[in-house]
Every structure is written in structure tokens, then in C-alpha cells.
């Protein structure tokens, strides 16, 4: 009874709850501040669309794993809690995998093992252990969404730069593909907005341009994440030396 009384006093989105959503996006970002989930951040950020699908998957898994863990937290035996968390995450990830395979087979093929590897993404395991086991369902759910978004946001930023400078496109692999800069091949219906093969007009000013092959390799993601961390810390001095 005492619990319901408190809940009635607190609105659904008090400032505390809002903090749960916004903190992981900035001051407590799982990738740039806690430096977790780097492995997949390097692997799936070659294309923006790929990173977007991966982000949605992680938000879903993180939010619902947090919610389910929090709902049954009183019943989980302490001795096997890690295994229980792992089973919850693995179940959700398998559901994502099966649904994605039915909805969009090419992108499923493209992401291949990385969807499965969400299971080992330490962000999710970390949130379950640190937050969901000791907090109420609604707050845990928000925390899950917040951390998923924090991870996804960085993924999208990295993928944005890697795809534009590495391939000259954006949203490649999706129906909304934008071809920004590169050599148009009319015989194969490949046309870029800025055609570097053009010999006259303003487009010919870009004839020196070539895609940066380093951006396609995982190493470049490390550089981009490094730059993001640098920018964030010069912005917010409090973060320096926190991790």
C-alpha cells in the first residue's frame, strides 16, 4: 500500500525519470564515457542504415531486458542471477533475430553475427546488474531505453561520417539510399549528386575527390569515436578523468 501511495505522488515523468533517459545520452554515455560496447560500435558502423537497425535492436533488447529483470527481481535466486539475466537477454536477441530475418532478409544477412553478439554487449548486462536488479520496472524500462539510445546515438554519429567519407553514400542498403559523391556510371544507372567523373561544370571541381578507404576499415571507427570523446570532454570539463 505504501508503494502505491508514493507512485501516485510521483508523475510518470518526474525530473528523476527524465534524467534516466537523458543522462546516458550525454554525461553518462555508455560508449564515450563508460567506454562499453566498443566492439560492435567498430563493426556495424560502416553503413548508416546498418547502424540504425542495430541501434533499434539494442534499444529494444536493453529496454525489455531491464523491464523483465526488474519485474521478476524479487524471485531471481541470487546464486544464479547472472545466468538468468543472460537467458533473458539471449531470448530477446533471438526474437529480434527471428523477426528481422522475416522482415528484412538482406539486412539480416548483412548484420549476421552482430545481432547475435548483442547478447555479449556489456552495456545491457551492466544495466541489468547495476540498475534493474534494484529498481522498479518503469524506471528500469526508461533506463534501458536511455542507455540503448545513448549507444545508438554514438553508433549513428560514427556511421554517418564513415559512410559519407568511406563510400560517398548515405542510407545505402535501404530503399532511401542517397548517392552523394562519387563517379557516376550511366551505363549501370549509378548516378551521384556530385559526379566526380564530370569533365565540365561545377562538378568538375571535385574531380580530385576519392573515397577514403580507411573509413571503411574498423580502425577508422576508433578514430571517429576518439574524436567524439575529445569533443564531448572539451565541451564538458567535468567528464575529464571520470572513466
Amino acid at each position, binding site marked *: 500500500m505504501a508503494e502505491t501511495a508514493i507512485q501516485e505522488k510521483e508523475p510518470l515523468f518526474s525530473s528523476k525519470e527524465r534524467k534516466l533517459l537523458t543522462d546516458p545520452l550525454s554525461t553518462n554515455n555508455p560508449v564515450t564515457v563508460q567506454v562499453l560496447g566498443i566492439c560492435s560500435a567498430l*563493426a556495424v558502423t*560502416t553503413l548508416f542504415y546498418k547502424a540504425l537497425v542495430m541501434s533499434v535492436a539494442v534499444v529494444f533488447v536493453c529496454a525489455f531486458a531491464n523491464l523483465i529483470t526488474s519485474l521478476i527481481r524479487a*524471485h*531471481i*535466486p*541470487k*546464486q*544464479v542471477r547472472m*545466468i*538468468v539475466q543472460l*537467458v533473458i537477454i539471449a*531470448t530477446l536477441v*533471438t*526474437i529480434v533475430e*527471428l*523477426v528481422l*530475418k*522475416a522482415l528484412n*532478409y*538482406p539486412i539480416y*544477412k548483412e548484420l*549476421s*553475427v552482430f545481432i547475435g553478439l548483442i547478447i555479449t554487449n556489456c552495456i545491457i548486462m551492466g544495466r541489468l546488474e547495476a540498475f534493474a536488479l534494484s529498481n522498479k520496472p518503469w524506471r528500469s524500462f526508461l533506463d534501458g531505453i536511455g542507455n540503448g539510445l545513448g549507444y545508438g546515438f554514438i553508433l549513428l554519429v560514427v556511421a554517418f561520417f564513415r559512410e559519407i567519407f568511406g563510400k560517398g553514400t548515405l542510407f545505402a542498403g535501404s530503399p532511401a539510399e542517397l548517392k552523394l559523391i562519387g563517379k557516376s556510371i550511366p551505363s*549501370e*544507372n549509378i548516378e551521384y549528386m556530385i559526379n566526380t567523373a564530370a569533365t565540365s561544370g561545377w562538378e568538375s571541381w571535385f574531380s580530385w575527390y576519392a573515397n577514403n*578507404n580507411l573509413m*571503411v*576499415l*574498423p580502425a577508422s571507427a576508433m578514430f571517429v569515436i576518439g574524436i567524439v570523446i575529445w569533443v564531448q570532454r572539451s565541451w564538458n570539463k567535468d567528464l575529464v578523468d571520470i572513466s
Partner: protein
Amino acid sequence: MHSTRQIYTFVIGMTVIVALILAGLSTVLKPIHLTNEAVFNKKAILSAVLPGAKDLTDEQVEEQFKTVEQMVLDYKGAIKTKDEVKKLRNFKDKEGKAEDLDLSKEKKRNEKDRLYPLYKFVTDKNETLFITAVRGSGLWDEIWGYIAIKDDFNTIYGTSFDHKAETPGLGAEIKDNPTFPNSFKGKQLYNKDGEFVSVLVKKGGADKTDKNAVDGISGATVTCDGVTDMLKKGLQYYMPYFDTLKK
């Protein structure tokens, strides 16, 4: 504190619930998965002959594929009928067409026991093309491809490659970078002396006038060697059948 019995009850209960959910979902989605996979493979086959095949919708792929004639060959180049294929591979609900063969299982068989799918495609310019399927090993796992050959049974019309787990940006370029499959266009399987040599993927770049070699991908030597090997070993078993057509 939970007793041992409670722990066991919890774990077993949880496992049962999870297993039921996943098994149910998997069964419900299975038919969709199978259609998706079939369309995906057909798209890969069509990519060898149609440059824009990637952008076709699923319905367009099915429609286009209806015009493709399918054959199954053995290593001597003899055509196997659907019933023979069905019997040889114990197919129950499949028809025994070329598209029904599981190529990764075929690869595990002895070369003389394998069945080789062959697709005949006629372009809108009335050229007859033969699409062969080859499969080999890259650096990490399997690689495969479809090679379309013109009706002189020598010149390559187009190719499409795919892989299971090659490194993105390096070996995976055989699929991701259109320059690689396109570089095979116009290459020839026989050398000047009329000897079957297939096409060599050459490290460090091939001579432009060389009709039997293409440029390799830098940083992906093992994958490129895998492609060379796959083409040579895979295509030779189609040659006996092509020889019978030449006459």
C-alpha cells in the same frame, strides 16, 4: 535466501517458458524465412546477368526468374531429370529443380557425387547466357558465386559473389565493391592455345590485355586466391556439358 529446490524450480520453469516462446516464434516465422532465403538466392543468380537486380522487388525477382530455364548436371555433364535429383537427394517436398539444391551440402560431397546446377537465361537482346554456380573457401569461411557465360562457352558475361564471413572492407569487397565482379566481364576461360585455364585473380594487378586474369583486392590475398581456386575447380565440371553443346 533461496533454497536449492527453489533455484531448480525457477531455472527449469524459466527454461521451459523461454523454449516455448522461441520454438513457437520460430515455427510461425519459418515459412517467411524460407521464402526470403529463396528470393535472396534468386536475386544473387540474377545479379550475374542483370546489373540492376539488387533493386528489384521480391515479386519482380520471382517474375524474372520464371523465364530462367533450370538444369541439373553431374560431373560428366549429363543432365539429371527432376525425378533423378529427387531420388539422389531424398527430397520430399522439393521439386528437384536446380534452385532446390543445397550448394553448401553439395560442396561437402566427393566431386564425382556432386550435382551441379545450371541456369539458362535469355537477355532482352536475345543473347543466351549460361549461369553456373561455384563454391569455395575464403579466408574465414565459405565463398560462392554465380558466373554467367556467353554462348561461345568461353567469354564471361557477368558475375556475382557472396561470402559467409570475409573481413568487411577487405575480403568482403568481392561482394560489396561492384568493381570486382564487373572486372570479370569479357574475360575468357580458355587461353590462346585452347586450354581451359579459368580466370586468375592476380595479386598486385593483372595485365590489362590478359584475357585470363583480373586485378586482386589489396589486403585480401587469401580471399582472392580462394576465388581463383573456386573458379578453376568449379567451372571445369561444366565444361563437358558445354562441349556437347558446341558440336
